[in-house]
């Protein structure tokens, strides 16, 4: 029904947005989708939502079809950084502004999109590393770290690994003794951690690329008769509700937030972009980090 958004859609304020989501691979992603959908409703934006099921080609197809349907603005979370030039050029030729969310694209041609709204995965890795460096700064003993990576090759896994390694690399006492992919899931997190525990007797720190893997690992650690948060310090990324709960319970030591709630900011940007106002090319989401105490305080108002 609401196919075409009335030409350029500047005057009457009714905006049609085409939003291409990566998929629904995690609770984080679902919260992200929900946030976009809810705030679209609030802001009176007609949302064309398309799920790419983790495939870049599907996202490209979706963006093409948005262009076909002559939406007013296109927003999407790229599966990966590269390979968007062609379709973004088509969007530009059709005079449809594009907003990137969550992840950036690596095109040299910055006129292809108006703005990028999202977190910085490398920075998240760095924050995790910095906390680690700080909390061990008065000991000289070697620190044995195991790492649970995200899906091999995925952008958050690559970046969170790199940022973390960059920071701890400065001090040779930090040693990553084992690093495996846990595919961002609890089940894999638990399975891999069980194997780590068997083959590495002394593990001091666990760094998990998301809460879910950390939560799975906690079960493994408990199963091995150790105390998570004490015998093995745990750092994770995301700050979903279950993770925050574990943090508040003292089972996790530190969580770097990666907020999925981009919706309101996205709608603001969209309105501005459609009106032709200038927007900053990089908008970083408001994100923080949590210690155990902060988690206890923040937990009651945690929405997802």
């Amino acid at each position, binding site marked *: 029904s609401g196919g075409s958004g009335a030409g350029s859609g500047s005057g009457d304020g009714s905006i049609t947005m085409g939003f291409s989501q990566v998929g629904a691979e995690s609770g984080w992603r679902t919260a992200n989708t929900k946030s976009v959908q809810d705030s679209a409703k609030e802001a009176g934006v007609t*949302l064309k939502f398309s799920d790419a099921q983790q495939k870049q080609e599907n996202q490209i197809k979706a963006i093409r079809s948005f262009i076909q*349907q002559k939406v007013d603005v296109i927003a999407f979370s790229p599966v990966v950084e590269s390979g968007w030039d062609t379709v973004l050029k088509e969007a530009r030729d059709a005079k449809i502004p594009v907003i990137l969310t969550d992840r950036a694209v690596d095109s040299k041609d910055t006129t292809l999109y108006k703005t990028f709204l999202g977190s910085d995965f490398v920075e998240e890795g760095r924050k995790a590393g910095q906390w680690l460096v700080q909390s061990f700064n008065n000991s000289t003993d070697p620190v044995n770290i195991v790492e649970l990576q995200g899906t091999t090759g995925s952008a958050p896994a690559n970046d969170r690994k790199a940022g973390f390694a960059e920071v701890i690399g400065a001090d040779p006492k930090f040693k990553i003794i084992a690093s495996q992919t846990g595919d961002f899931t609890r089940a894999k997190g638990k399975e891999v951690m069980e194997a780590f525990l068997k083959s590495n007797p002394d593990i001091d720190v666990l760094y998990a690329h998301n809460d879910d893997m950390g939560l799975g690992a906690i079960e493994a650690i408990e199963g091995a008769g150790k105390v998570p948060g004490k015998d093995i310090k745990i750092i994770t990324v995301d700050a979903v509700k279950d993770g925050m709960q574990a943090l508040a319970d003292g089972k996790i030591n530190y969580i770097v937030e990666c907020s999925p709630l981009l919706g309101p900011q996205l709608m603001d940007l969209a309105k501005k972009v459609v009106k032709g106002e200038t927007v900053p090319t990089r908008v970083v989401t408001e994100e923080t980090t949590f210690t155990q105490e902060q988690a206890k305080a923040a937990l009651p108002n945690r929405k997802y």
Partner: protein
Amino acid sequence: MSVLALSPSRQRYLPALVTGGLFVAMFVAGGIRYEGFASGQVVLNVLIDNAFLLVVAVGMTFVILTGGIDLSVGSVVALSTMIAASLMSGPGWPPYLVIPLVLLIGAGLGLVMGAIIQAFDIQPFIVTLAGMFLARGLCYTIGTESVPIEDPTFTAFAQTRIDLFAELWISPSVIIALVVVAVAAYVLHYTRLGRAVYATGGSEQSARLMGLPVARTKIAVYTISGFCSALGGVLLSFYMLSGYGLHAVGMELDAIAAVVIGGTLLTGGSGFLFGTVLGVLVLGLIQTIISFEGTLSSWWTKIFIGLLLFVFIVLQRLFSSRSRR
């Protein structure tokens, strides 16, 4: 009961005909339901967006016609994009060297898998699964990050529009894919290799006793499939302008589905390339409908795809079921 009265010799075209009819019906239904759907460009976009899948599915058709299966295609596609991208961005190889090399590697992988299947009499599923692991693993050893392609030839190719009449356009990849289909159809229908493919699928033992070069045929189909996958990879790198180890995950399933939806029997020996083309178009059209529907949540998207597939398959069955002998 048969709706169409066809002579026995024509009856084997029935599934393909029915599939074609249903495809048109689906398109019409989409046109009624969605504004802007009933345009020629929508159909062309299905082709543009699925040119690589079409090429891969053509290779898969050869394999399935012999009664085999090739699970490695998706990874070989990914590997091809990765090799192409990294060779062009790193050492800066020119495309006219890179593309033949990639095609050679794809065909070579297929050849090796086919040879193993044939020489050691191992089920194709497991050999090509190993091939799938291998190709994907090679991608990651080249790099886990996505590698952009900035080569001017590739970019030009990616962004060329071939204008047809009345504002309709296609990409060069579509032409390549259609040429591949035409060549493959010729090979299947007009060459001894093609007929040996059907015979092997009909009964491998009989084909051997009839004195057909079964071993050579089997190795050939996997080589063809490997080649088509590599070519699909090249087309995909035109489409994406990047090489990435996670490209085309699960594409083997799409390709198999397209072939089987097109009426080819997984047990081998029966089916047409035209059916495969239709199968790819049907999958593409389902995707287009989903994106025109526009309001589906992630999970309703999946459920809806399943439903459309279900309706399609059941109708196809209903219209083409022949009375038993």
